[in-house]
């Protein structure tokens, strides 16, 4: 069965781009437009990896990360943001990878392969 990625980003254009690009890579992709929605989806669906934007209205990515790691401590989370210096915020240290948003998606795709490829 295909591994399923949950993309969490408040910008619709980016959600769709990620969905198409990652589906081309062979993954199943689910979308959530907010932190709250992402937690609902995680309860209902089986998800193998979360791609998480940090800056979102309402519940932000750091908070979502905290809740995800509390409940599903082995579920990999990749943080995705416009600000590289979030790396220094200890709230983000629990993530499995940290990626600065870039129009070149090579690094993101490679990171996903590294994480999901290793999992049984």
């Amino acid at each position, binding site marked *: 069965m295909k591994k399923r990625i949950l993309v969490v980003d408040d910008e619709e254009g980016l959600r769709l781009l990620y969905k198409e690009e990652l589906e081309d890579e062979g993954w199943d992709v689910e979308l959530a437009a907010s932190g709250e929605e992402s937690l609902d989806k995680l309860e209902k669906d089986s998800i193998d990896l979360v791609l998480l934007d940090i800056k979102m209205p309402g519940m932000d990515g750091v908070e979502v990360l905290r809740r995800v790691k509390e409940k599903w401590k082995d579920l990999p989370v990749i943080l995705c943001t416009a600000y*590289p210096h979030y790396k220094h915020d200890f709230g983000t240290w629990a993530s499995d990878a940290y990626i600065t948003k870039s129009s070149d998606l090579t690094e993101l795709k490679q990171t996903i392969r590294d994480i999901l490829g290793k999992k049984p």
Partner: protein
Amino acid sequence: MEYDIIEQVSELAVSGSPLEEKLEKAVALLADYLAFDGCAVLLLDENGYMRSVAAKCPEALPPYRLGQGVPGLAFTGGALIEVHKEAGDAAWEGIEDSGLEGYRTALAYPLKEKERTCGVLFLRARAKVRLTLLKRQILKLAAMQLLILVKSSEVLNDHHRVYSELLEMQQKLVSSEKLLALGDMAATMAHEIRNPLLSIGGYAARLKRQLPPGSPALGYLEQMGAEIGRIEKIMNGIIRFLKDNAVELKTDDLHCMIDEAMELFADEIAVHCIKVDRRSSGGPLPVLADREQMKIAFDNLIANAIQSMEKGGILTLETSRAGEFAVAKVSDTGGGIDPKYMGYIFNPFFTTKKHGTGLGLPIANSIIMRHKGTIEVRNEGHGAAFIIKLPVAGAAAPNSSRHETGEAV
């Protein structure tokens, strides 16, 4: 005319010459007028000696301390002393003054402002000289003029010093406020521009993949992708420049840091036929630094130097210790910086290069400032020299400390 001398000294006072020159001329005029062989203005220096600032003297004056010799006594007493070295001269009795060997008459007139004495006008004559009442009055007037000369120059110097200090402080303030404002702006820009850019660039790449081979639109999309990559590169530079970057300080060796930064440039150096002159003082140069960040700072400085020498030259990297500071100097032979741009080179977005982002030097500057260091630039030899000073890590300094400044945006 008896008063000519006063007029002449007054003319000196309003002339544009430097103080020392004015005083030299004034003492010469006075010595001639009063028929003394020597005339000098002595001012108290910071070591408690009365230093001759201007003199018309056949022989050098000995160093006088306060209360010593005729000038020293006139200074402490605050009143004119006139001695004639002859039996029965009460003023001369008990005074020892090696400056008066071979002289018969000496006159010391304190230069007094209200109750504060700042110096002495000292006259010596080999012959016996008795001043007429008129000459004494003129001497008094001339002494006052000399005092005014000295005082006005002090006031002017103070004024210049305070003014340049103020100017320096103002420049520092302006530049730090500019940095803060830019930090806020950059954070917003990073978010508001990076997301749409990702969207445009990402879809352009998808479109490119979906076009049939040979389609002319492939080239357009290629161009779009490259341009978006360029904007993203600039964005990364701006974000690095943000004020609230965390600095992780560890004791590290400055010699090594610069060597490590240099490794990146091996290819470029070879391409541009640049000779590297690495000079380093012996012994370790421990500084408290964030190695990654300092590397970025040195990268920028070295890249800047190399860009100025595209047709070859000498890149000099020097590391040494100067007292409490570890000093790194990056200099090139690329022609130097146009003096009219000197004040702007650390300003964000200022660049004289066709493809420069104008962020290299401001980034280096902000990183060094975060390390409580200084960066200085000057033209030297055939190029520009950047001098970085960082405090040497003391033995008592903690081995590692983490500094978080401000919260993430």
